[in-house]
C-alpha cells in the first residue's frame, strides 16, 4: 500500500520549499521528493553546510539559509532527500521513486513540479573536452565541496551568473583570468527599451557592484566575442575566437538558464515556445496549474524568473492546491494570494531587460560550424542533424530514428532544443513546427533490480 498525500512536491529548491511550507501550514499532507542530500535546489545548493563560507555571502547565506531552516523546522512535511522520481502515472497519481532505502511508490492527489532550471547548452567546437564545464557546475563545486578550479580559468558567454561566479571564485582565492562576453554591441541600448529599470533598480545595483568587484579582482573582459572554440588533446588547452586566442585550463560556459521540462514533456503536458527566453515552457495558468488537472508547476521550471519569483510561485501553487483540496474557499485563496502576486511582480520587473540584454545568439541554438558536436551522448554533429533535416527529419522526435539524438543516457536533456533549432533552420520552419522532444519514463535510469524491488501489487 502506497502512502497517500494531498500534495507531492518534486524538488526542494526555493519553489518547492516555499510551496511545502504554505501547503503544510494550511493542513495539507505534503511529501517533498528531492534528488539532493539537503534542501536548497541549485541556487541554494548545500546552503546548510556552506552558508559560513566567506566566498558565498549575500542572498545565499541570508535568505537561502533562512528558507532551508524554516523548511527543516516545519512539521507535517515528509521530506525525502536523495530520492529520484522516475515515473508519474498521471491518471492515478501514483509516483514511482528510487531512494536511498530502495524503490517505492506514493500516491498524491496533486503534484507540484518544482524541478527548476538547467543551464542552456552551449554547443561550441571542443565543448566536450575535459576542462570545459558550465559556470553552474563550478558554482556547485564551490557550494557543495568548497572546491575551486586551479590554473587559468576563463569564463565565456553572458548573464548575471558569470559575474556572481567571478566574484565568488575571487573571494575563494581563485579569481578567473578572463571573461569572454558574447553579448553583441547594441544589446544594452535595446534592453533599456524593455523597461523595468526603476522597479528593478535594487537588482541592477547588485549587478553593477558584482561587475566592479570582479574587475577589481583582476578579471579582464573581452566584449562581443564570436565563434568561440575550445582546443586541446585530451583536455582544453587553448581558446580561440574571431580576432583572439588565449591559453586556458578551465573553461566555464554560460548562456543563461532554461526551464527543466523533461518531466512536463514526458507527461505530455501542453508547452509553448517562449520567443523572449528562447526555450520551451509548460503552459500554465496564474496559479501554475498545467494542462492536466493533477499537475502544477512552480519556479523556474515554468519559465525563468529567479529564486524570489520561485518562492512566490510555490506559495501560489500551494494555495491553489489547498483550494482544490477543499481547505480554502476561492475568495480566501485569492485574498491570501494578493501579497505573493505583488512580490512576484516585483521580482520579475527586471526580467524583460535581462532577457533582451542576454538573449543568446542564433548560433548558440543552432551552431554554425557543422563539425560541432550537439548531442554529447551519441556524439552527433550539427552537420549530421542538418543532413537528417534535408533527408526528411521534420523535428527532434523524427531525428531520433535518423541519428539517435535524444536516445543516449541524457534522453535529450542537452541536445533536444539544439536539434530542433537546427532542423527549424534547415527546413525554414518555426520551433513550434519542429516541436519539442518527447521523453519517455523512466525519467532517470533505474536498474532492473530496483524495478524488481517494487511491491508486487504495484509492479507494472
Amino acid at each position, binding site marked *: 500500500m502506497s502512502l497517500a498525500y494531498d500534495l507531492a512536491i518534486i524538488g526542494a529548491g526555493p519553489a518547492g520549499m516555499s510551496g511545502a511550507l504554505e501547503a503544510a501550514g494550511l493542513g495539507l499532507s505534503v511529501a517533498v521528493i528531492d534528488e539532493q542530500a539537503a534542501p536548497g535546489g541549485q541556487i541554494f545548493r548545500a546552503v546548510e553546510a556552506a552558508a559560513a563560507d566567506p566566498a558565498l555571502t549575500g542572498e545565499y547565506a541570508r535568505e537561502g539559509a533562512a528558507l532551508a531552516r524554516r523548511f527543516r523546522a516545519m512539521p507535517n512535511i515528509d521530506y525525502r532527500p536523495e530520492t529520484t522520481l522516475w515515473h508519474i502515472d498521471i491518471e492515478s497519481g501514483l509516483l514511482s521513486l528510487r531512494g536511498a532505502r530502495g524503490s517505492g511508490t506514493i500516491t498524491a492527489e496533486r503534484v507540484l513540479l518544482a524541478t527548476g532550471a538547467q543551464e542552456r547548452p552551449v554547443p561550441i567546437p571542443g565543448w*566536450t573536452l*575535459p576542462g570545459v564545464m*558550465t559556470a553552474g557546475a563550478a558554482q556547485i563545486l564551490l557550494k557543495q565541496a*568548497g572546491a575551486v578550479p*586551479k590554473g587559468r580559468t576563463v569564463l565565456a558567454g553572458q548573464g548575471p551568473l558569470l559575474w556572481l561566479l567571478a566574484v565568488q571564485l575571487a573571494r575563494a582565492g581563485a579569481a578567473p583570468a578572463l571573461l569572454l562576453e558574447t553579448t553583441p554591441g547594441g544589446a544594452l541600448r535595446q534592453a533599456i527599451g524593455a523597461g523595468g529599470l526603476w522597479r528593478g533598480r535594487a537588482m541592477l545595483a547588485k549587478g553593477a557592484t558584482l561587475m566592479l568587484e570582479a574587475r577589481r579582482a583582476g578579471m579582464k573582459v573581452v566584449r562581443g566575442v564570436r565563434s568561440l572554440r575550445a582546443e586541446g588533446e585530451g583536455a582544453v588547452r587553448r581558446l580561440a575566437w574571431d580576432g583572439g586566442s588565449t591559453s586556458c585550463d578551465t573553461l566555464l560556459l554560460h548562456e543563461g538558464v532554461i526551464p527543466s521540462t523533461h518531466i512536463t514533456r514526458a507527461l505530455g503536458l501542453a508547452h509553448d515556445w517562449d520567443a523572449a527566453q528562447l526555450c520551451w515552457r509548460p503552459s500554465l495558468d496564474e496559479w501554475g496549474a498545467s494542462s492536466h488537472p493533477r499537475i502544477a508547476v512552480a519556479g523556474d521550471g515554468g519559465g525563468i524568473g529567479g529564486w524570489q519569483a520561485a518562492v512566490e510561485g510555490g506559495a501560489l501553487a500551494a494555495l491553489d492546491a489547498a483550494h482544490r483540496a477543499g481547505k480554502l474557499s476561492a475568495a480566501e485563496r485569492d485574498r491570501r494570494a494578493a501579497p505573493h502576486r505583488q512580490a512576484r511582480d516585483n521580482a520579475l520587473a527586471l526580467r524583460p531587460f535581462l532577457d533582451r540584454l542576454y538573449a543568446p545568439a542564433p548560433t548558440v541554438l543552432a551552431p554554425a560550424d557543422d563539425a560541432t558536436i550537439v548531442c554529447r551522448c551519441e556524439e552527433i554533429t550539427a552537420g549530421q542533424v542538418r543532413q537528417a533535416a534535408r533527408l526528411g527529419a521534420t523535428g527532434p522526435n523524427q531525428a531520433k530514428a535518423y541519428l539517435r539524438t535524444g536516445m543516449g543516457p541524457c534522453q535529450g536533456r542537452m541536445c533536444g532544443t539544439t536539434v530542433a533549432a537546427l532542423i527549424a533552420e534547415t527546413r525554414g520552419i518555426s520551433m513550434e513546427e519542429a516541436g519539442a522532444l518527447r521523453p519517455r519514463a523512466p525519467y532517470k535510469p533505474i536498474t532492473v533490480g530496483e524495478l524488481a524491488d517494487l511491491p508486487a501489487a504495484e509492479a507494472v
Partner: protein
Amino acid sequence: MFVQRPDIRPATVEVLVDGAPVLVPEGASAAAAVLLAGLSAIRETPVTGAPRLPYCMMGVCFDCLAEIDGVANRQSCMVTVRPGMRIRPQHGAREAYRPEDAA
C-alpha cells in the same frame, strides 16, 4: 583540475577514486571526488572512446557516468560520498556481465 579549501571545508570523508584514497569534504559528490583526485577523465564515451569529465554537475548531462560501489552507469554528480565509497571511471558502455565479478 579542482583544488580544495580545507580551512573552509575540512576534508573528512575518505573515498577510493580508481583505487587511490582521496579525502573530500562531507556532502561532496562522487563526481567532485573525481575532479579533486585530478583524474584526466571520468569516462570514455562508448561511441568514439573520447575522454570526458563532468560537465553540468547537476544531473542533466550524464557525462559523469561512473562505476560506484560496483554499479556502473551511476550519475556520480548526484551521489553523495560515503566513507569507503569506491568510485571508478567507466570505460565505454556498461558491462552487463563480468566473469571476475561472478567468481
